[in-house]
C-alpha cells in the first residue's frame, strides 16, 4: 500500500511544480515506484517541467470520466522502471473533478505504487480540495517571504482541519548571503512561525531555470539544489539525513577565511 503525498503552498510561484518533479524523480532514483498526478486542471505544466508534453494522449479528466483505462493515461518517464505521470487536462477546469472521485482514484492507485505525488494548484478553492481529498501526507512549499508564509500558514490550518496527519515544510529559494546579512528570513525563522516539521531547505539556484527549460529535473545532477532535493527524498522515505550546510565554501574560500 503506497502513500499519497500532496505538494501544496497556497501562494503561486513558490516552486510546487518544480518540487513535485524533483521529489518524484528523486524517489524513482531511490528505486521506488512513483506516480505523479498534475492536479492543476486547465493550467498544466508538470508535464513540461518533466519534458513529457508531447506524449500526452489521455489525461486525468479522461480517467475520471472513464473515456479511457487508467493504464492508457499513465505516461512512463524514460530511464526508470516504475515512474509515471498522469497529466491534467488543458481544456477543462477544476470543476471537472470532485473530491470524492479523486479519493476513489487515489485509493485505487495506491495499491499499484509506493508513492503518489499530487501537484496541487495554487489557491484554496476546488482544485485544492480535489488535491487534498485523497492525500495521506502533505508537503508545504514556501519561500522565505512574508506573503508566502502567510499563505502557507493558512494552508497548514486547512490541512489540519481536513485530517491530513503529517504535514511537513520545504523552505524553497533560500539565499544564504541575504540571510547572513539579515535581509532574508532563515529557515529557522520560518519554522518558528509555522510550527511544523522541516523536511528540507532548497537554496536558490540558477540551475533550476535551466533544468525547467530543458525539461530535466535537476535532482542527482550535482548542483546544490539537486543535492537538497535528494536529501528531501531520503527524508520522505524515512531516512535520517542532516540538513546540508549551505554556506560551505570551496577550498579557496576556506583558506581565505582562516586568514
Amino acid at each position, binding site marked *: 500500500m503506497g502513500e499519497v503525498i500532496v505538494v501544496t503552498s497556497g501562494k503561486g510561484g513558490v516552486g510546487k511544480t518544480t518540487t513535485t518533479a524533483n521529489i518524484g524523480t528523486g524517489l524513482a532514483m531511490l528505486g521506488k515506484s512513483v506516480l505523479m498526478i498534475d492536479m492543476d486542471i486547465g493550467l498544466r505544466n508538470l508535464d513540461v517541467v518533466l519534458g513529457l508534453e508531447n506524449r500526452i494522449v489521455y489525461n486525468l479528466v479522461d480517467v475520471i470520466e472513464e473515456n479511457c483505462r487508467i493504464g492508457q493515461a499513465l505516461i512512463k518517464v524514460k530511464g526508470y522502471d516504475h515512474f509515471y505521470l498522469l497529466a491534467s487536462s488543458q481544456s477543462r477546469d477544476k470543476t471537472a473533478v470532485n473530491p470524492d472521485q479523486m479519493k476513489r482514484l487515489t485509493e485505487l492507485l495506491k495499491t499499484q505504487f509506493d508513492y503518489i505525488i499530487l501537484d496541487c494548484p495554487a489557491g484554496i478553492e476546488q482544485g485544492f480540495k480535489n488535491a487534498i481529498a485523497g492525500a495521506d501526507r502533505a508537503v508545504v512549499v514556501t519561500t522565505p517571504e512574508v506573503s508566502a508564509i502567510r499563505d502557507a500558514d493558512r494552508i497548514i490550518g486547512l490541512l489540519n482541519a481536513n485530517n491530513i496527519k503529517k504535514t511537513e515544510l520545504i523552505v524553497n529559494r533560500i539565499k544564504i548571503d541575504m540571510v547572513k546579512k*539579515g535581509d532574508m528570513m532563515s529557515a529557522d525563522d520560518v519554522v518558528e*512561525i509555522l510550527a511544523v516539521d522541516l523536511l528540507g531547505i532548497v537554496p536558490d539556484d540558477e540551475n533550476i531555470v535551466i533544468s525547467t527549460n530543458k525539461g530535466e529535473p535537476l535532482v542527482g545532477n550535482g548542483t546544490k539544489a539537486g543535492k537538497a532535493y535528494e536529501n528531501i527524498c531520503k527524508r520522505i522515505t524515512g531516512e535520517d539525513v542532516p540538513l546540508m550546510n549551505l554556506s560551505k565554501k570551496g577550498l579557496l574560500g576556506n583558506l581565505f577565511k582562516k586568514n
Partner: protein
Amino acid sequence: MEKNVVLSKTAEGFSLYIKEDLTFEQVKEEIRNLFDGYSSFFRGQTLLIQLKGRVLDEHELLVCNNICEYYTQARIIIDDRESQNTEVKKAIVEENKATKSKLEDNDNVNSEASLETLEAIDSVESVEVIETVEASKAENYESDKLQQSVETVSEEIPVLRDEPYVNEQAEDNVELNEPEIKGYLSDFITEENNDDNVPAIDDNTENSVFDFCMKNAEIFKGCLRSGQQLSSDKSILYIGNVNPGAILYAKGSIYVLGSLKGSAFAGQGGNTNAFVYASEMEPSQIQISDIVAMSEANTMKWLKSRRNKVYKDTIAYISGDNIVLDSLSQSLNEIKTI
C-alpha cells in the same frame, strides 16, 4: 524596645502601626516578615487594614498592598484615612462569610492551592486533566509575576496613548518605549465615555477582575493559524501562538500564553474591564469593547535580528478612551485598583 511594625485587631479589621522614621525599604521588609507564613490563616478572606504612624503615599501603599496580598493570599484593603465608608465595611463582612463557606467546600480538594487556582479548576472540570494542570501552572506563573511586580513597581513604564507619547524620564530609552500600538479611537468615543474616565466599580464582580476572568475562561491549545477564528462567551486562555491573520473573539478577556501576532477582540458586547494578555505582544489589532487599536505597519519585523521590540508579558487594557499596552507587573496593579 518599641517594635517597628505592629498589627492589632480592631472592630472592623486590623490596624497596622508603622514607626514614623522607617525608610520605605524597611517598611517593605517589615511587612514581608510580618505576613510571611500567614497564607493558610488568611487565605481567601478580605482584610481591612487601617494604617497608623508613618504616612505612605499612593505608590508605596500599592506596593505594600501587593506584598500583603502575596503573603496572605487574601484580599487586602489598606485604608490610610480614618473615615471609611461603613457600607464598604459591611459589604466586606458579608463577602467574608460567603468566601468562607466556599472555602470549606473547596478545602478537601487541595489545601495548598490558592483560591484562584481552585476556582479555575472548578470552572474547567470538563476540560482534559492536562489542560487543567496547564491552567494552574499559568496561575502560579501569574502569582510569581505579582511578586516581581512588588520589586519593580517603582520603574514607571510608559503607557501608549492616542497622542504621541513623550518620554520625560530617559532619553536614551526613547526607542524602546516608542508606542507600537496607537488607538485610532476618535470615531468610537461616545459622550458617555468622555464623562466617565474612571471605570465604575461593579459591586457584583469577584475579588478582582483577574480572578473573575480566570474563573470564566475557556482553555484552548495549539497554534491558531491564518484564517482561523475562535470565539467564546467567556474569556479565552490560549496556550500556543496566534499567527497573523487569526482572530480571537471573547466576551471576557483574552490570555495568550505564546505570541499574539493575529487579532484579539476582547470584551465583545461592551465589557470595558476586559483586557488582553500575551507573553509576546505583536498583535495586528486589539479591540476591547468598542475601542480598536491597530499596530503600525512594522516592516521586516519578522526577522529575528530586527525583532528586538517585542513586548513580553504585556497587557492591553482600556485606560480612559484609549487602549494602552503595559507590562504585566504594572497593569496588574492597575486592574486591582478598579
